[in-house]
């Protein structure tokens, strides 16, 4: 059961939706691998925003704790992602993801 108070949309939800959409379309459209990685972070933070807002309003602390976990994981992910991008750059001298299509059938 979702508490009745949460069912009402908050303005921050619109902000989060915009952030998420921004991240998603950036992720789908942009060709620079670093920007793509940043777009992933953007989507994660959109989720974080909702978690914080809902947690504050409902008085349950789990959402806040979860956000801390997500930030930790996002940091790790960024480290790994940047490592991959560095290697991609070393391999081809570019970070344009269209240059990496070796997996086609």
């Amino acid at each position, binding site marked *: 059961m979702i508490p009745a108070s949460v069912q009402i949309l908050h303005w921050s939800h619109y902000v989060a939706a915009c952030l998420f959409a921004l991240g*998603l379309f950036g*992720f*789908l*459209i942009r060709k620079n691998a670093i920007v793509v990685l940043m777009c992933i972070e953007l989507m994660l933070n959109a989720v974080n925003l909702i978690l914080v807002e809902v947690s504050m309003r409902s008085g349950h602390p789990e959402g806040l704790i979860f956000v801390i976990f997500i930030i930790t994981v996002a940091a790790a992910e960024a480290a790994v992602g940047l490592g991959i991008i560095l290697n991609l750059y070393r391999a081809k001298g570019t970070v344009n*993801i*269209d240059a*990496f*299509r*070796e*997996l*086609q*059938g």
Partner: protein
Amino acid sequence: MEFLLLGMILIPLLGSALNGLILRSGSPTRTGTLASAAAGLSFIAAVALSWNYLTTGEIVTASFEWLRVGSLDLNWGFRFDAITVLMSLVVTGIGTLIHIFSVGYMDEEPTPYRFFAYLNLFLSAMLILVTGANLPVMFVGWEGVGLCSYLLIGYWYEDIKKADAGLKAFVINRIGDAGFLIGIFMLFQIFGTVDFESMKQIVDGSGTLNVRWLQFAAFFLFVGAMGKSAQIPLFTWLPDAMAGPTPVSALIHAATMVTAGVYLLARMGFLFQVSPDVSHFVATIGCATALFAASIATAQRDIKKILAYSTVSQLGFMFVALGVGAYSVALFHVMTHAFFKALLFLAAGTIIHGLHGEQDVCKMGGLRKHFPVTFITTTIAVAAICGLPPLSGFFSKDAIVFAALTGPYGSPYLWAGLSLASLLTAFYMSRFYFLVFFGEYRGDAHPHEGGWAMKFPLLDLAIGSAVVGFLGMPHGLHLLPNYLDQLLVPTVPGWEESHAFLTEIQSMGVAVAVACLGIGIAAFFYLPSPARSEKAAGKLLAIDTILKNKYWVDELYEVLFVAPFRFLSGIAARFIDPRVIDAAVLFPSRLARAGGTLLTFIQSGSAQFYLWIMLTGGLLVLWQALKGLIV
């Protein structure tokens, strides 16, 4: 006891595996001794089991579950009853002697282990055949001996003719086997079981069975027997089977395997007893085969071909006995024939071995000096097959000829036909005997008789040929009880002799006179000089040509069956296979390939394109999931 029964079957199988799969090497003496030991142990087991049966009357059985489908409850059932006493003693006893003979005969073989492995395997399959308690188990043995026959006929497979002979035997046997299988299916449909004892009880117990269907089933079983036992029209493989080594001809194509058809019909005697039409047919085919093959045998020059046609003819005798309803008599002849025909083949083998492969009787002659033991033993065998008293062949053949007259389905025509066949038998066997052993040696090899491994089986079989007839002395003589009848009658149907224009003693007199006449004719033509016989044959040019060419039966089959079959195969190969079957098979594959080409564009390798697809899919799923909630 169950242990002995399984041991009897499995020991030769073990010997075969040891020689053929594990050792795969060794001299003829070593591999042969191993194989002979396996056969000998099997024989000892058979003797012990027979002794047990004769003294206590206990029927040893063994059974393991095989398959259970619907109403079919099939077991690996084995049974050691009266017929099996007779058959297993013959198979293992003569089998052992022939194994020993082979040690001497195959002394110059490069791969003797292969030969002995096949021979042991044959023994095991034959024992499965004669101990099986239901038709499918029997069929396993039936196919097993067929396989071994094929392998052994084509043992010298480098010679394409010999390999072809093996193939011919296999293919013709398949025709019979198809009949046998149809027979099994029909019997299962009629009785709901394929177990010999259960079927027998049903036939004995009720008169409500549809005799017409029973007759059809019996007919198809007989087709199976025709193939295995080389009856008209499926007999042409047996003379060609002589391409195999001679001990194989003795064991498989004279003494044991070819009598499997006789065994089958005797085992199913309760069925044939109530099928008069099929019984008449069996007797007619048997009589025709006996005459036909005997007439061909009179003109053959190859020592083994003479014996092969003789075997076909003798099997014809047995089928007459089965057809007239004298099942125990047929089995009696199976036994005596096994002894004297195995002996004749082994004698022929000794001679062929001693003459370095010469098989033409016209290039032999005067061999009694060079092959004394073979000469004496062959004399006994020839006298036995000609039907001279008191040798084994006399009693069994006379019993058949008399049964052809007085049996439940007997007739004077069958009696006359068999008497004529006996005359021909006496003639061609004497011709063989005189041409081989008398006169002057006409060949150019240096004849030498084999060692003891070859002489010992000859002597044993000679004793057997001389005395086994006393086991089945006819009632008419009042000398000895007919032990064989007493043994077999619980298992095979007995029969009442009807009155005829001859008594048993008179019939015997006629048989002896006929035999003497045949021997006399042969002696007149062939004893003084073979040249004279050639002149006489020249005067009978037309008949002689027909007989030498075996009535052109092979050529007839070539034209009637083989050529049209080749023609149809050609059409199938050139038109049906590429245009119809290949096209049908290739169409789906081309369809799949085209579809695949169409779909490759999805897998572009671009990660973002995949993400687009993922997003679309995700949204579709989401929409499906939420559709219900929103509306």
